[in-house]
C-alpha cells in the first residue's frame, strides 16, 4: 500500500492540520508528530504552539516527538464515523487510542492494528501517510500508529 508515499510530490503535500507534523512531507519516513516543549514548566504539548498550553509561558521550543509509543487506552470504532470521515469505503472497524510517547504526552490516534489484537500496553510505531487528495489537489498527510513486528 501507499506506493506513492516516498515519491517526490507530483501533488503538493499538506499536513492534516497546520503545525501538527514535523519534517519534510515529501519523505514520509522522516515525518514525526510535532510538539512544543515549555522551558518554564517542562510540559510537552501536541503541535507547534506559540505558548505552553499548561502555564501560558512563551519560552518554548518546537520539537519532533518520538515515533515509538505504548498504547495507554483505546476503543474500537464499529460504525462509520459521522461527517467528512476519510477512512476506507466500505467502512472497516478500527481502533483508536491514546498512545503514550516517551516525551511525556499521550496522543489520540487511529490504530492500524487488527481489532482483535489491540491491547493496553502494546508497543506501537508512528506512521505518516497520504490520507486523501483535497479539493485543491493537495495530498493531505495524516498519521496513525501501527503494531511493531
Amino acid at each position, binding site marked *: 500500500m501507499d506506493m506513492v508515499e516516498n515519491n517526490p510530490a507530483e501533488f503538493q503535500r499538506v499536513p492534516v492540520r497546520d503545525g501538527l507534523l514535523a519534517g519534510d512531507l515529501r519523505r514520509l519516513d522522516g515525518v514525526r508528530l510535532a510538539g512544543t516543549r515549555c522551558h518554564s514548566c517542562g510540559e510537552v504539548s501536541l503541535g507547534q504552539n506559540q505558548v505552553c*498550553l499548561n502555564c501560558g509561558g512563551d519560552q518554548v521550543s518546537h520539537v519532533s516527538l518520538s515515533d515509538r509509543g505504548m498504547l495507554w487506552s483505546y476503543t474500537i470504532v*464499529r460504525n462509520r464515523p459521522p461527517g467528512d470521515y476519510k477512512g476506507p469505503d466500505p467502512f472497516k472497524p478500527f481502533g*483508536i487510542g491514546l498512545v503514550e510517547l516517551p516525551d511525556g504526552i499521550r496522543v*489520540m490516534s487511529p490504530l492500524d492494528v487488527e481489532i482483535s489484537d489491540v491491547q*493496553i500496553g502494546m508497543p506501537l510505531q508512528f506512521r505518516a501517510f497520504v*490520507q486523501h487528495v483535497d479539493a485543491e489537489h493537495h495530498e493531505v498527510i*495524516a498519521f496513525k500508529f501501527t503494531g511493531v513486528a
Partner: protein
Amino acid sequence: MPEVVIVGAGIHPFGRFKDKSYEEIGAFAAKQALNDAGVAWSDIQSAYCSRMYLPATSGARILRRLGSTTIPICDIEAACASGGAALRQAILAINSGEIDLALVLGVEKMPRGFMDPSMIYSPWQIQMGMSMNPAYWSMRAKRHMYEFGTTDLQIAKVAYKNHRNSVHNENAMYRKPFSIEEILSSPMVMDPIRLLEICAANDGAAAVVVASKERARRIGGKHINIAACSQTLAQYSADFRCPADSLSATANNMGPTEFTSNQAFERAGIGADDVDCFEVQDTDAFCEVEIYEQLGLCPLGEAGRLIDEGQTEIGGRYPVNMSGGLISKGEPVGASHLGQVVEIVSQLRSQSGERQVEGAKVGLAHVLGAGGNCAVTILKV
C-alpha cells in the same frame, strides 16, 4: 454571601417530540415553574436560557410566548454544564442586589443519533475518524478496567439501576426496566460501552424560578436553598474528554468533578457524606462509576464495589440518579442540569413518590461534558 432560594420548578418531559417546537417545549417548563412559584411572568426581572444546539436568542424567542417584556434575556452555553452556568448567572445577579427574582430555563431540541461533529471537532479530527463523543468516554472506561479491575458487569449494573429507577419517573424518555442480560447483550457502541448503557440526545426543558431570601419570604411557600452552584473548566490535562487530541503523561491535576464538587462542598459547608441524594452525569454507565470516586463516595478504584454493594440505589447509603439519569431520560444538553435540579427539588419536597429518598434534606446535581465543562449545584431544605 446572601442566600438565593428556589421558589418554583417546572419540567417538560424529556423525549422525542416531533411535532413540538423548542419554543413550545421551553415555554411549557417556564410556565410550570412560574405557576409552581406562584409568581407572574411580569414579576421576573431577568431570565437566562441554557441551550447548546438551538439558534441565537432562543431564550427570547421562547419567553416571548409568555408575553412581551423588556427584561434582559440571555442565552448561556457551556456544553453539558450549560444549565449550571445559567443558574450561576441568576444567582450572581441576585447576589449583586440589582434584582431579586429571576427565571432560569434549560431547553434543547436535538437531532437523533450522532450529532453534527463540526459542533465540537476540528475538520482533521473528523477526517481521521476521531469525532465520536463515546470514543472518549470509552477510553476512560477501558483504562479504569485495566487499572482497577472494574468489570463489564459492574458497569452494566449502573445502567440496570438507572433504567429501573426511571420506571417511576413520568418525565423520563424510556421508563422501561432492562435485565442485566439484556444490557450486556445490547449492541456494543464503543468498547466497552453498550447501547443500553449510553444516553441519547433528545428534546426537553426544565426551569426554576430563583429569588433572594427576602423576596422569597414575601412570595411564601416552601423554598429550597441553593447552598452552592459552582462551574469550572477542567485544569490542564486533568480530563480526557472530547475534543481533546492529547493528554499529558506527566501533569497530575485534579479532575473537574473532584475540583468542582470540592469548591461546591466548601461553599455549602458540607461534605459528600452529608448529601442524601445525587443526580450525576451518566452520559454512559461508566461515567457514573468514576463519578462515585471523584465525588468521594468511595476511594479511587473502588467504585465497582460500591455498585456491587447496592450503595447507590434508592435506599442505599448514597442514592444516585433516582430520576433514572440521562441513560433513561435522555440528554437534551441545555436542559439536563436543570432537569437534575428539578429532580432534587422534588426529592427535597418529598414529592418523588416511588423514587423518593426517605427524608432527603440535601441533594447534589452534577454535570460534565465537552471541553471539561463541569457544574455542581447543592440544594438544601
